[in-house]
């Protein structure tokens, strides 16, 4: 491990207590209560304007909270200036000092804290991010990926309790982004510092973080491990923003043996009660497209014990490893189905009458009052509104 400094004290948990930020009448961050355990890789995920960057800036000390407190371990840092906090930031578009070379950029924090001998730690840190040869270049002479690594090195060298990353990969192209995701994850494992990563890219959040908090309108909609949030979304926003979902509003007709039975469009659906996010009688049934199987109606086979719907294939696009279908139900809703290409026999064609089905344990139930479009891509929504609405029952 290329740790370059003596670790003073141990890494501490980060607590946000009722943290609120209002700009005029607009509430950017709304009474956030959150504990981020020491040493974790935590992602704050949400669309632009959801308050995630404001939260990050309040933790860094670059924005004053309207109400609430920020604690690192037992120390309240809310009133401290940015340079008094054991927190460092990797800025969006990096904010490297253009007048200083790479070495001096990385050495900046050490020098400001009055550390005399910076040569060794800086060189070690540049090795960690594999930029040893670039020490005397100016930031303008580096590629985007290299600049990004300098920004990480410049923050990490200070051994902060918490490293904040504000959309750190946003300016990179797709291939480089994948590579840097792995790189950042490796560095985090090596140094063991708490990483708080702000992003609007759900795939990035799920790839890198131990814990993901999905944020919307200044509040956290749901928090948990990537698998947990993906498999069991508790709100329509999370169901749509993180991956895609088919949502069918219905009514509860019975609850027994840990299973909730819901009726919608003359069909009944079963959901494990533990996966239903509401106690009310109005429930939205949800299922992820890849959990659904599609079969031609005449060779559907035994479907007992599964949740079943009938429809017609209106679109089929073959992508190699899977085929994506749109299946229109009798009431006009289009369901999305991702089908793995296991055997050529399974393939159904445009216009075929089909049966779609899924195992009840893959269903989830949302509050019936949810806005079914929450969290969907706005442009996609605009495209679909010209067509039949996809997910309205």
């Amino acid at each position: 491990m290329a740790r370059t400094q003596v670790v003073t004290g141990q890494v501490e948990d980060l607590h946000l207590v009722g943290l609120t930020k209002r700009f005029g009448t607009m509430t950017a961050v709304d009474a956030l209560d959150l504990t981020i355990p020491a040493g974790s890789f935590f992602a704050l995920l949400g669309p632009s304007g959801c308050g995630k960057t404001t939260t990050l800036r309040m933790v860094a000390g670059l924005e004053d909270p309207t109400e609430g407190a920020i604690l690192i371990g037992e120390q309240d840092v809310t009133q401290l200036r940015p340079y008094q906090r054991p927190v460092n930031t990797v800025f969006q578009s990096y904010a490297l000092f253009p007048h200083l070379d790479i070495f001096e950029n990385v050495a900046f924090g050490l020098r400001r804290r009055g550390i005399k001998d910076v040569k060794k730690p800086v060189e070690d840190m540049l090795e960690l991010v594999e930029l040893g040869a670039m020490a005397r270049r100016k930031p303008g002479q580096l590629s985007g990926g290299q600049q990004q690594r300098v920004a990480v090195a410049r923050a990490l060298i200070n051994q902060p309790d918490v490293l904040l990353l504000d959309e750190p990969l946003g300016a990179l192209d797709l291939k480089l982004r994948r590579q840097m995701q792995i790189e950042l994850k490796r560095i985090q494992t090596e140094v063991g510092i708490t990483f708080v990563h702000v992003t609007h890219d759900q795939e990035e959040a799920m790839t890198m973080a131990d814990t993901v908090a999905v944020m919307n309108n200044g509040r956290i909609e749901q928090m948990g491990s990537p698998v947990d949030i993906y498999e069991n979304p508790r709100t329509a926003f999370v169901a749509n923003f993180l991956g895609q979902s088919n949502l069918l509003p219905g009514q509860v007709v019975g609850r027994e043996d840990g299973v909730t039975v819901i009726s919608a469009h003359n069909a009944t659906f079963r959901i494990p009660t533990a996966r239903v996010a509401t106690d009310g009688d109005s429930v939205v049934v949800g299922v992820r497209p890849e959990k659904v199987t599609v079969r031609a109606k005449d060779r559907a086979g035994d479907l007992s014990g599964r949740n079943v719907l009938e429809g017609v294939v209106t679109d089929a696009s073959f992508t190699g490893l899977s085929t994506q279908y749109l299946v229109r139900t009798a009431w006009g809703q289009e369901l999305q189905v991702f089908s793995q290409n296991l055997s050529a026999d399974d393939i159904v064609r445009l216009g075929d009458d089909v049966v779609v089905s899924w195992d009840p344990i893959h269903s989830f139930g949302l509050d019936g009052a949810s806005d079914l479009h929450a969290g969907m891509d706005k442009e996609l929504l605009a495209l679909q509104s010209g067509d039949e609405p996809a997910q309205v029952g």
Partner: protein
Amino acid sequence: MPAVVPSAATAHGSDEATVRRSRRSTPYLLLAPGLGWLAVFFVVPLFASLATSLQVPLVEGDPDQGYTQGFAVQNYVNAITEYWPQFLKSFLYAGIATLLALCIAYPLAYFIAFHAGKWRNIMLILVVAPFFCSFLIRTYAWKTILADQSPVTQFLNALHLLPDDRILNTPLAVITGIAYNFLPFMTLPLYAALERIDFRLIEAGGDLYGSAWTTFRKVTFPLSLPGVVAGTLLTFIPAVGDFINAQLLGSVKDKMIGNVIDSQFRIVRDYPMASALSFLLMAATLTIVFLYIRRAGTDDLV
């Protein structure tokens, strides 16, 4: 996990308040010396001269006896009725000279921005360098260039291009001098605006419109408009008040309002008249500037 202590948020409250207060007064501390200087040596003199412009002679008909404070709006009426031709000439000459400077500076700035390549910085230096040679010396040089016996005048005369057979001591000489002397004020803002334009936009324009002239009219010129506005204002404002070019290159008939104010103030010593003329000039200039800024839809300068 350590206990979350919400009350801790108020622990440093009083410190923070003092910090905030001092930060709130910072801008005023930064502004105070500079704005103070401008207030005492720009605003106060302006008001003093406003007062002067309303003064009346102590002894009627004999200005040598001095003046006393009055409210002689008549001074302004006199100033306009007596000197409106010079006012008109000032704005006319300054306006034509500004247009001329625009026509000269635009291709130059365009060339530097898009075609100069690695010579860009050298060319920018070349554009500014002549203006380090003193204003007056340059203007005297023009006097030599445009003199009756000079090759330039004789060449143009041979082509019968000059109505009066001469350049020096005509409005043409005054306008040439003004356009020359304020050229960098035109070229630099134009360059700054043009340089910001993505050249691919101009190429795309060429692709879509075909004709180079149409591309210029529809794409390049509108995009460079902020530079055109800034450049024309920075040229026009000093040009209106200038009297050196008119004095050195023009004839007695070509006197501009600057000449009148200068002589009223320093030779005739009719201070109320000089001040009234100053205020009229300033008011007229500001009116034109603000109308122009409004029309051009930019307030970058203010």
